[in-house]
C-alpha cells in the first residue's frame, strides 16, 4: 500500500516538475491568446509586419495594434485602457507610467533619427539644416508634447538654430502628410517616415554628429491579463532576428 | 387711365385667356367661381406673375408684352389689397401705411404725414400705433386699403376684399368700401365670388369661368340676360337653351316654350324668373300658354320663401311662399304641374 503511494507521489512529482520546465519535446502548452499593443505613430508601418511575423511564429496568437501619438497612448493607459504592451518613441513619455507603477521597466528596442522631409522637387531648395532658419519658410514640426516634437526642439538647440515653425502637429504622420501634399516646405520627421513614403517625398539628411536620436522603449502594462504572452512579445520585438531585421528594413537603427 | 389687357398666361397647366378693356375711372368686378383664374388675373395685372403671350397696357405704359417686356410690380402704379390683407406683423399700422411712400423715396417725415392723412380719411386715426394683431378684421381691411392708397396708385386691385369678414361686418365694410371707391379716381378692379359685391359696388362686371371671359356687362345686363349657367345661378334665374322660331322655343333636351319674341330665330337663351313660375297639383286652366308636368326634386328653404327644384322638360326652379308650400303639401317626389305666362319669359339670341 505505502509502496504504491510512494510511486504515485513520485510520478506526480515528475509530471509536476515537467510542467515547470517546458522542454523542446513539446510537453508545455503552445503560446496562445490576444494581445492589445499600443504603439507610437511612427511605428505605423513597421509594427504590423512585426506583429504578423509573431503571429506566424505562434499561430494561436493574435496581436491587435493601436497607433497614436506616444503621449496619447500613455494617457489611455493611465485612464485604464485594456492595453497589454506599450511601445513609445521616447523614455520620457513612458516615465509617467513608471512613476505611477502602471508599466513594468521600459526596455529599449530600437532607435530612430530625425531628418528633414521636403516635397518632391525640393521647391524651397533646402540643402542643410541651417536653411531652416530662412524667413518665410513653411516648416512643420510635431508639438513638444509628442516625442518627435521634443526631439525637434533638442535638434534646434543642439545646432543653435533660431527656427520658427508654422504648425505643431499632434503626430509625426500629419507633418509628413503636409510635406507630401506640398503645403509645407519642410518638416522634421523620422528617417523611417520618409523611407515609408519613398516615392512621394524627398529628404535632406542631417549629419550624424548634428542629429538627435530617439530611443524607442517598450514595456508590459502592469494590469495585463496576458503577462506571459506580453513578455514573450516584448522579447520577440527586442531580440529576435526577424524583428530586428524588419526594423532595419524600414530604416530603424540598432537599439544599442 | 385705361387698361387694355389682351393676353394668355399659363401656370401649372391652367390657361388664363383675357381680352378686355378696363375703362378709366370705372369700377370693374371680376366675378367667377373658385379656380376660374380670378386671382391669377389679379396677380398678372399687379405684375407678380408674367404672361405667356399678348400684351397689357396701362394708359400709355406697356407693362407686359411678350417676349421681352415685363414691368415689375415696383414699376407699376398699382395698389393691391390682398385677401387676408398681408399686413406686415412686425410694423405698426402707421408704419404699414407709410411703407409704400417710404419705398418710393419719400422721407420718413413725409411718409408719416401721408400715412396720417390716410388714417384720418378712413376714420381709424386711433389705430396708428397698434400692431396688426391688435386690430379687428374690419379695421384690418381699412388699414390694407389705406396702405394701398397711400402710394396714390392709378389702379386699385382688390382680391376678395370682403371674403375674410363675418356676415355682420361685411355689410358695414361694404358700405365703407363703396364710399372709398367712389372717392378714388383711378381704375378699380376687384375680384369676388359673391354676386352681391358685384351688383352693389361695380359699374361693370366681367365673368370669368375656367380661365376665359364668358360674359361682360353692367350688373343689370347680367341680371336680365345671363349667358351662362353659372351667371344664371348667381342671379338666381332659370336659363333655358333651345332653338327659337316664330315665338316658339324648342328646348334643348325636351320641351316647348312659348316666348314673346316672335322675330327671334335660331339658337336662343330664355330667362324665366323663379317668382314667375306657378305650381299646381292639378293641370291648371287659365291664360298661361306654358304648362307642363314634372315632379319635385328638391326643396330649399330660404329666409322668406322656398326654392322648389323641379324635374321636367324643361327642368325649372320656382320660388313659393311658406304658406303655398303648406297648402300644396309638397315633398320630394310629389308630381306637380308647372306654368308660366309667355310674357314673363325673355328670350334672346345666343
Amino acid at each position, binding site marked *: 500500500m505505502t509502496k504504491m503511494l510512494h510511486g504515485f507521489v513520485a510520478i506526480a512529482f515528475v509530471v509536476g516538475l515537467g510542467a515547470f520546465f517546458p522542454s523542446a519535446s513539446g510537453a508545455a502548452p503552445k503560446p496562445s491568446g490576444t494581445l492589445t499593443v499600443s504603439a507610437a505613430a511612427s511605428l505605423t508601418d513597421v509594427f504590423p509586419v512585426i506583429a504578423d511575423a509573431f503571429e506566424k511564429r505562434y499561430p494561436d496568437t493574435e496581436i491587435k495594434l493601436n497607433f497614436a501619438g506616444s*503621449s496619447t497612448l500613455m494617457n489611455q493607459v493611465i485612464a485604464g485602457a485594456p492595453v497589454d504592451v506599450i511601445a513609445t518613441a521616447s523614455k520620457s513619455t513612458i516615465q509617467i507610467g513608471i512613476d505611477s507603477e502602471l508599466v513594468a521597466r521600459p526596455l529599449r528596442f530600437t532607435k530612430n533619427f530625425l531628418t528633414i522631409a521636403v516635397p518632391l522637387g525640393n521647391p524651397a531648395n533646402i540643402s542643410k539644416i541651417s536653411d531652416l532658419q530662412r524667413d518665410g519658410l513653411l516648416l512643420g514640426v510635431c508639438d513638444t508634447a509628442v516625442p518627435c516634437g521634443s526631439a525637434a526642439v533638442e535638434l534646434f538647440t543642439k545646432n543653435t538654430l533660431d527656427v520658427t515653425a508654422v504648425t505643431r*502637429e499632434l503626430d509625426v504622420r*500629419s507633418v509628413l502628410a503636409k510635406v507630401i501634399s506640398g*503645403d509645407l516646405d519642410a518638416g522634421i520627421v523620422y528617417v523611417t517616415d520618409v523611407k515609408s513614403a519613398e516615392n512621394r517625398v524627398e529628404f535632406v539628411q542631417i549629419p550624424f554628429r548634428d542629429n538627435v536620436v530617439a530611443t524607442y522603449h517598450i514595456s508590459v502594462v502592469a494590469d495585463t491579463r496576458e503577462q506571459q504572452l506580453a513578455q514573450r512579445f516584448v522579447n520577440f520585438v527586442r531580440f529576435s532576428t526577424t524583428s530586428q531585421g524588419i526594423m532595419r528594413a524600414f530604416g530603424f537603427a540598432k537599439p544599442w | 387711365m385705361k387698361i387694355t389687357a389682351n393676353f394668355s398666361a399659363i401656370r401649372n397647366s391652367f390657361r388664363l385667356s383675357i381680352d378686355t378693356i378696363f375703362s378709366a375711372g370705372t369700377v370693374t368686378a371680376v366675378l367667377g367661381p373658385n379656380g376660374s383664374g380670378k386671382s391669377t388675373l389679379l396677380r398678372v395685372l399687379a405684375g407678380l406673375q408674367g404672361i405667356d403671350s399678348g400684351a397689357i397696357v396701362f394708359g400709355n405704359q406697356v407693362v407686359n408684352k411678350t417676349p421681352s417686356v415685363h414691368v415689375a410690380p415696383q414699376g407699376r402704379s398699382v*395698389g393691391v389689397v390682398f385677401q387676408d390683407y398681408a399686413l406686415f406683423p412686425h410694423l405698426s399700422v402707421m408704419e404699414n401705411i407709410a411703407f409704400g411712400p417710404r419705398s418710393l423715396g419719400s422721407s420718413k417725415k413725409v411718409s408719416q404725414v401721408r400715412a396720417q392723412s390716410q388714417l384720418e380719411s378712413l376714420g381709424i386715426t386711433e389705430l396708428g400705433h397698434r400692431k396688426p394683431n391688435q386690430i379687428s378684421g374690419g379695421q384690418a381691411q381699412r388699414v390694407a386699403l389705406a*396702405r394701398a392708397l397711400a402710394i396714390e396708385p392709378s389702379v386699385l386691385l382688390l382680391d376678395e376684399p370682403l371674403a375674410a369678414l363675418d356676415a355682420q361686418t361685411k355689410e358695414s365694410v361694404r358700405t365703407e368700401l363703396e364710399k372709398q371707391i367712389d372717392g378714388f379716381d383711378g381704375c378699380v378692379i376687384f375680384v369676388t365670388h359673391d354676386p352681391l359685391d358685384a351688383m352693389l359696388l361695380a359699374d361693370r362686371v366681367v365673368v370669368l369661368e375656367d380661365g376665359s371671359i364668358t360674359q361682360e356687362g353692367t350688373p343689370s345686363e347680367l341680371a336680365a340676360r345671363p349667358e351662362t349657367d353659372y351667371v344664371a345661378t348667381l342671379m338666381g334665374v332659370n336659363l333655358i337653351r333651345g332653338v327659337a322660331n316664330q315665338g316658339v322655343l324648342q328646348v334643348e333636351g325636351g320641351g316647348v316654350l312659348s316666348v314673346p319674341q316672335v322675330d327671334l330665330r335660331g339658337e336662343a337663351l330664355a330667362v324665366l324668373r323663379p317668382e314667375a313660375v306657378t305650381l299646381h297639383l292639378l293641370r291648371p286652366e287659365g291664360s298661361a300658354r306654358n304648362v307642363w308636368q314634372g315632379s319635385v326634386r328638391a326643396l330649399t328653404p330660404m329666409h322668406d320663401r322656398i326654392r322648389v327644384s323641379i324635374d321636367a322638360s324643361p327642368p325649372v326652379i320656382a320660388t313659393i311662399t311658406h304658406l303655398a308650400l303648406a297648402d300644396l303639401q309638397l315633398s320630394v317626389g310629389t308630381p306637380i304641374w308647372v306654368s308660366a305666362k309667355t310674357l314673363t319669359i325673355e328670350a334672346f339670341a345666343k
Partner: protein
Amino acid sequence: MPGLVALLFLVIPLIALIVQTPWEAFPKIISSPEALEALRLSLVTSLVATAFAALFGIPMAWLLAREILPFTGLLRALVIVPLLLPPVVSGVALLEALGRRGLVGAFLYDTLGITFPFTTVGVVIATTFVAMPFLVITMEGGFRSLHQRYEDAAATLGAGSRRVFLRITMPMVAPAAIAGLVLCWARALGEFGATITFAGNFPGVTQTMPLAVYTALESDRSVAIALSMVLLVVSVGVLVALRGKYLQTRAS
C-alpha cells in the same frame, strides 16, 4: 423614462468635467498667455466665420426656399454635404481645393502668392465650411414658413428686392435667423478636425481652444480640463443670454 436617460446621458459627463476641474490652479491656468491667446483666437475666428456664413448662407437659403434656381434639390444636398462629412475629411477636402497645390490654391499661390493653410484666415475658412450648413438649413426652414404674400405686398408698394429682403423678409424670419446664427457660431467654436487638418496648429495663429485642449491633453491633463471648462462656461453663458429671445419667440 427614456427622456430622463437622455438627460442623464448628456449631463453626467459635464458634471464629471466640473468635478475634475483643478479649481485651485484654475485662475492661473486660464490667465496664462497661451490660454488667453487660444480663447481670443477662438472667439474672433468663430464670430468672423459666422459673419461669413450669414453673408453667403442667408441669400443661399432664400434661393433654396423660393426654389428660384434649377435643381433645388441637388443644390440643397450639396450645401448639406459638410454636415455629413467627418470634420477631418472636410479638412482634407479643403486642402485639396485650397492647399498650395490644390485645385484653386495652386493658382492663387502661383499668381498671387496667397496661401491659406497655417494662417488665421485658414481657420476661418475651415470653420465657415463646416458651420455654414447649420445656418442655411435653419434659415431655409424659416423662409419656407414665410408666406410669399408679404413679399408680394411689399413689391406692389414699390419696394425693390433688396428693401423687401431687408425690411420685410428678414425681420419676419428673425427667430429662425437667431437660432441659425447661434447654432452656426456654436459649431464654429467647437470645430477641431477641419481646423487642425487644413490650418494646422500654432499658438496665436491657428491654435483655437479645441486645439489647445487636445494639445494640452498630450502633456498636462488638468490644463486640458481647465481649458475645456472655459469653453463650456463661454458657450453656456451665450445660450443663457439668448434664452430670453428663445422664450419670447415661442410665446409669439
